């Protein structure tokens, strides 16, 4: 009985997880001349195939489509760039869905259950002078009540004066976070790339799932014909998470030596206590660390109990990106 209940719970969890995926691969046959092919999912979302095929060219492409696994309805194929009047149009035909099994299916349930990366908000810098300008505009407008056209001019001037008082900070938090979730006993690890509004699929990631927050965000995939596998997904106002599987790097990371990458902001949890170090150099043994506060909450939650946990950030990388590793069993 217990086994049946467990099986049911796992099945429900699997369905729930699968239902979140917004990247399902569709095979599409293109016969030139075509350009601006759009695959629209009934109920929301689309994939735009960028580029064109000349007359006589034929290609079958596999592109991500924001359809959920539970949907079997084929995408609607249309064109948003008209051909010249004297051109005989080619065609684009949906051939079918590719694959069915989640690329994360092989991962251990513990790895799959770990928390997603958190993306910091980008707070706007609104000068407190803006409120002063607003109040001044109110007083001036009230004073000019008998001369409303002058008051209107004052309102326009105040509106213009407010413009420089709102600024977007040049550098706030990480715009893109990559989190490698691993376990020394596992061969396959989980990788999650997270970004706001738009995410580009890394070149070394071929099979993935796309999750969004909010879950029903309107997703548009862009698939260039010129560079296959250079896909990007866009969902305005949403957080995007690209989950994939990567090879485990457990052998390169041991207490005796770091063969993985230079790390900074290192935390090690042992017997329930977090110890922090500022850096772990390449090839150096794990630093002793000092008792300190826990790492950021999203990194320290949903972790297995009773095993050592290493959390560290890789040094360097492009601006406004952060790459973390979260390893259990070190």
């Amino acid at each position, binding site marked *: 009985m217990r086994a049946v209940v467990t099986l049911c719970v796992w099945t429900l969890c699997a369905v729930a997880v699968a239902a979140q995926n917004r990247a399902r691969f569709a095979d599409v046959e293109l016969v030139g001349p075509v350009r601006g092919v759009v695959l629209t999912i009934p109920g929301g979302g689309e994939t735009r195939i960028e580029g064109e095929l000349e007359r006589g060219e034929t290609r079958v492409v596999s592109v991500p489509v924001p359809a959920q696994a539970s949907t079997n309805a084929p995408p609607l194929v249309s064109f948003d760039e008209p051909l010249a009047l004297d051109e005989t149009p080619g065609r684009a035909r949906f051939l079918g869905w590719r694959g069915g099994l989640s690329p994360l299916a092989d991962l251990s349930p513990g790895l799959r259950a770990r928390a997603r990366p958190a993306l910091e908000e980008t707070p706007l810098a609104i000068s407190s002078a803006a409120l002063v300008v607003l109040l001044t505009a109110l007083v001036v407008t009230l004073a*000019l009540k008998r001369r409303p056209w002058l008051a209107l001019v004052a309102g326009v001037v105040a509106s213009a004066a407010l413009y420089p008082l709102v600024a977007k900070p040049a550098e706030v938090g990480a715009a893109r976070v990559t989190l490698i979730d691993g376990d020394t006993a596992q061969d396959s690890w989980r990788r999650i790339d997270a970004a706001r509004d738009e995410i580009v699929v890394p070149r070394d990631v071929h099979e993935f799932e796309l999750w969004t927050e909010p879950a029903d965000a309107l997703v548009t995939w862009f698939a260039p014909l010129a560079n296959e596998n250079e896909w990007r997904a866009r969902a305005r106002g949403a957080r995007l998470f690209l989950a994939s599987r990567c090879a485990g790097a457990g052998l390169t990371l041991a207490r005796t030596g770091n063969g993985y990458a230079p790390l900074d902001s290192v935390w090690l949890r042992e017997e329930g206590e977090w110890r922090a170090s500022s850096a772990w150099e390449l090839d150096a043994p794990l630093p002793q660390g000092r008792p300190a506060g826990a790492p950021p909450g999203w990194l320290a939650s949903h972790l297995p109990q009773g095993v050592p946990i290493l959390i560290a950030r890789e040094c360097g990388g492009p601006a406004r990106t952060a790459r973390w590793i979260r390893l259990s069993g070190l």
Partner: protein
Amino acid sequence: MNARGASVLGACVAWFLSAAPFALDAQTFAGLSRAALAAIPWIAYCGLPRALGDSGLRAVAFEIALFLPPLALGTWIDLAGGMARPEAASISGAALGFACGLSLSARLAARAAFVRDAHAVVWALFVVLAPVLAATLVLGGASTFGSAPTWLAHASSLSPLGWMCAQLAQDSGARATPFAPLVLVLVLTLIGFGARRASVRTEDE
């Protein structure tokens, strides 16, 4: 308090409601269009039926002068937050158009009692009641009774207030041009012009 005094007080209250969110932490309203947030109190206030005699058209310019700075600040915040320029222009342009049209229509209608009453009925039904009723049904009863009736949804889509509320979410998919609300504002303005004619006729007699 006379009609003009009440009008200034009302405008100040609308100004306060419109500007107050800017005094709070910006993160409190993360994900919301600040221009739409600033515009909602004004759109609700501008079309409010006026007392007979409160028909000075110069007051429209005065109200817009008060409304402009909070709307502009909201628009600058939206733009800095990453909203596309056409979207920001659409929201602020529509807000300004609604405020001008509704304020003008309310003041024109205040010249004749009968027309003012007609204006008040149309304003109350289509600008306020329809979207409030539709929102109440959708928020409170959708899970039990399904979505709002089609006729109510159509009536609600006419409301400038409803349209502006739909623009609140920055990732809103409802960035359609507000044709229907503009038509309603036009109808209200035509009703207002009816009062102008009626008052001219009365003066002639």
